[in-house]
């Protein structure tokens, strides 16, 4: 079943066109990655889906409903969560409060408690820093917090924008293991990554953006062996 | 425009310029004066105007700012071709407004710029085109000091003045000078700022200095609160002031009981029963739904006085008007009978009023 469908989506920033008629489909339960060079429009794609940026034309269907005109806050309530680029944690709130805000739309108190516990199990570092102001965390700690916070709304579709940026290799490994678990328990994932190697290894399918256009798409394994891709994105 | 200068008398109306504080922090006073002037001009025009022409008011706002007051003066004198400029309300703005008037030789008359040096320059020479129709600060200050020391026989005064007002400062200086020479002692002097609302701290200080009398040279809005709060703190000494007290608002704010024992100098007694005054009060009340205050009355009188001078001048001409103004003798207004002296200041008697159960009552008159 198709969970998210973008068709002929275009986005402008003032006079600059960041996305040109892109179309994508993400099925229930999949992991799809979106890769591309700096400035190719990956972040823009995610921001448009989650309602932070408005399209200029095209459609966004989520569970067959048009969400392109809905405010971002409503979209979250429909089960879509976006872990933004650059962490964007609330710097003058404690780690714990940041997580509370992550669960702010939820009404099931017990479920939330359980998920809190799980977050701290996933990221023990956050437990150690529970009452520290989030703004003083190290870069990587902030990244963990951002991911944990994004998961607390119990999304059906998780959008991740460069989750590995600035993380130690070991943590990256851990986080991707966690993401795998999350995917296996039924969350669909759309992953934006600079580390194309990692992304293609992790995902089922992938889209490659170039200057706001979908340049290539297909099975991740196939793309991993595509000469063009290897040259341009894998540094081979 | 340059070249052929049209003269101010050419139009089919007589133009008077109003340069007033209609916005900004002293817009209350400006608005009151303008109401008085407009009311008078309406009456005059209904009675046929002056010199057979209707009076036209060119009303311009100076934002309560000195720079704007100068600008407005200049504009009225050069663009609007008025025969005279009325205003501004405060001494400070009048001082800013007068250079362009002098420069363009257009009479400027203020009904409320009480500072002594409005009509005189630094060397003590009279400014040719500037007139005022209100008491000078020194006159009222001296009057009240005399009243306190001689009539009431109270020799310990506390002063509570408005630090931001030149009027208040002028009255204070004059009062202190005279009072001292009469053997009186200023036991406390405190200051507030216009628009303050809480005076209890200052009053507490004053109370501790145990004065016989409290002199408050300010305007009714603050004075009302001061008297009220003083009484609340249990201070029941007499309160003295000047024409700034004159407003129905004073009673409203302070309450009738609290006003007992309040004395102030004024142009006239609003409790006056003379026909003119009563007629003015009734018709004004009909128009505005409130009794006139001192500013209303002063504005009203000034308009009539200028009209009177214009009639005497015989034609609409700035120079002739100036001469006529200088020649004003025993002009009968609501606020008393007034003549203009050599320094372009009014010579008129001051009335001292005592507030009894909320009614300002005539107590005595003092000639200048």
């Amino acid at each position, binding site marked *: 079943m198709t969970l998210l469908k973008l068709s002929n989506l275009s986005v402008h920033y003032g006079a600059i066109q960041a996305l040109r008629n892109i179309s994508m489909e993400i099925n229930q339960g999949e992991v799809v990655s979106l890769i591309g060079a700096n400035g190719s429009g990956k972040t823009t794609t995610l921001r448009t889906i989650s309602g932070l940026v408005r399209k200029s034309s095209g459609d966004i269907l989520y569970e067959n409903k048009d969400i392109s005109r809905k405010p971002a806050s409503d979209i979250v309530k429909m089960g879509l969560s976006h872990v933004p680029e650059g962490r964007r944690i609330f710097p003058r709130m404690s780690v714990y409060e940041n997580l509370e805000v992550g669960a702010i739309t939820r009404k099931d108190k017990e479920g939330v408690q359980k998920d809190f516990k799980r977050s701290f199990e996933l990221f023990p570092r956050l437990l150690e820093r529970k009452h520290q102001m989030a703004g003083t965390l190290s870069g990587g700690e902030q990244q963990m917090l951002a991911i944990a916070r994004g998961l607390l709304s119990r999304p059906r579709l998780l959008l991740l924008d460069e989750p590995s940026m600035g993380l130690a290799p070991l943590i990256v490994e851990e986080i991707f293991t966690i993401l795998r678990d999350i995917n296996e328990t039924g969350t669909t994932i759309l992953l934006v990554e600079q580390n194309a190697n990692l992304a293609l290894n992790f995902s089922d399918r992938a889209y490659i953006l170039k200057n706001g256009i979908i340049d290539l798409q297909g099975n991740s394994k196939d793309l991993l062996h595509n000469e063009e891709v290897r040259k341009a994105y894998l540094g081979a | 425009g*340059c070249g052929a200068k049209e003269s101010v008398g050419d139009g089919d109306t007589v133009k008077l310029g109003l340069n007033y504080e*209609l*916005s900004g922090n002293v817009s209350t006073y400006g608005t009151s004066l303008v109401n008085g002037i407009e009311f008078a001009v309406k009456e005059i025009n209904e009675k046929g105007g002056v010199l057979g022409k209707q009076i036209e008011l060119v009303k311009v706002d100076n934002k309560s700012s*000195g720079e704007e007051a100068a600008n407005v003066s200049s504009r009225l004198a050069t*663009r609007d071709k008025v025969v005279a400029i009325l205003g501004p309300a405060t001494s400070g703005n009048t*001082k800013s407004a007068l*250079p*362009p008037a002098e420069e363009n030789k257009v009479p400027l008359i203020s009904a409320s710029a009480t500072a002594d040096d409005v009509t005189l320059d630094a060397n003590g020479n009279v400014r040719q085109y500037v007139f005022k129709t209100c008491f000078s600060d020194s006159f009222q200050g001296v009057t009240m000091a005399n009243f306190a020391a001689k009539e009431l026989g109270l020799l310990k005064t506390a002063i509570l003045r408005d*630090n931001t007002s030149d009027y208040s400062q002028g009255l204070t200086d004059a009062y202190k000078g005279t009072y001292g020479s009469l053997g009186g002692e200023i036991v406390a002097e405190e200051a507030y700022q216009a628009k303050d609302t809480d005076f209890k701290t200052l009053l507490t200080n004053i109370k501790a200095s145990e004065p016989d009398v409290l002199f408050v040279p300010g305007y009714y809005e603050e004075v009302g609160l001061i008297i009220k709060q003083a009484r609340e703190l249990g201070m029941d000494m007499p309160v003295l002031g000047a024409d700034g007290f004159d407003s129905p608002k004073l009673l409203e704010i302070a309450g009738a009981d609290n006003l007992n024992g309040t004395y102030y100098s004024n142009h006239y007694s609003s409790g006056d029963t003379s026909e003119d005054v009563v007629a003015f009060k009734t018709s004004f009340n009909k128009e505005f739904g409130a009794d006139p205050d001192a500013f209303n009355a002063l504005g009203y009188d000034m308009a009539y006085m200028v009209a009177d001078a214009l009639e005497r001048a015989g034609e609409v001409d700035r120079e002739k008007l100036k001469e006529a103004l200088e020649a004003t003798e025993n002009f009968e207004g609501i606020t008393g009978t007034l003549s203009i002296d050599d320094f372009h200041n009014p010579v008129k008697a001051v009335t001292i009023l005592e507030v009894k159960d909320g009614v300002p009552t005539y107590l005595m008159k003092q000639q200048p």
Partner: protein
Amino acid sequence: MKELISRNNIIKIMMVLAVYLLVYLMMNAGIIDSYIFLNIVSIGINIILAVSLNLITGFTGQLSLGHAAFMSIGAYASGILTAKLGLPFIVGILGAALAAALAGVLIGVPTLRLKGDYLAIATLGFGEIIRIIGLNWKYIGGAMGLNDIPRYTNWTWLFGIIVLTVVVISNFLSSYNGRAVISIKEDEIASTSMGVNTNYYKVLVFTIGALFAGIAGALYANYFYFIKPDSFGFMKSVDILVIVVLGGLGSIRGSILSAIALSLVSLSLQGIPELRMVIYAVILFIMMVYKPQRILEPIRKLVRKEA
């Protein structure tokens, strides 16, 4: 790098001289009468104030709500020197510049640590303190103001000082000092790390800005004859800031144009006192929403084309 005697510079100098002569001749011919000239003086003073505030707020990013205080210090300094002590105007101007610049150092040094809104509030407080001192200082007349200051400000003084202000401040800005100052606005930490002595520059721009505001005050006092502390209150500071913002933060040309534009707006509202401030408020709001720079951009382009 442009050299000093380039074609461009010569054209600029010629244009400046032309403007000066034009107004001078028009005054002599009586085309510019006292009323127009009074407005020219007001606008000129506002230009000096706005350009100097732009250095502090527009370029360096130090939000100041107390610029009128520097003007006030200059006005009183010159008032005392020329009226009370009877000294010539040049002494008044230098005294005003010096006094205001000192005040600039005085407020600049302690408020170094403050940023954004906190600095704005501190400067607002500074402005009020100056006003209150003025109100209480008998020597300078207190609330009664300082009267009968000789009128020395004329077209030559006014124009000369406007040119001086613009040249000094734009030359300062187009040097490495200017880059340093702008970098402070952009990112103070990075700027510090690149070796910019941010403290020095902050105090320096406050001092330069104050100095010119002080001179503007001298021009004011010696034109309008009379000054009082309330003429230089919070609202005056806001007026200057509005000019700067309308003209564009970091645009000197913009400040000049908007000083003229706003004076005209104010003049056209004098005749409707009841609604004046309401309309002014609405105009301000519209300017802020529709990006002031955008309104002035076409005019600015035109001016640039001609230059």
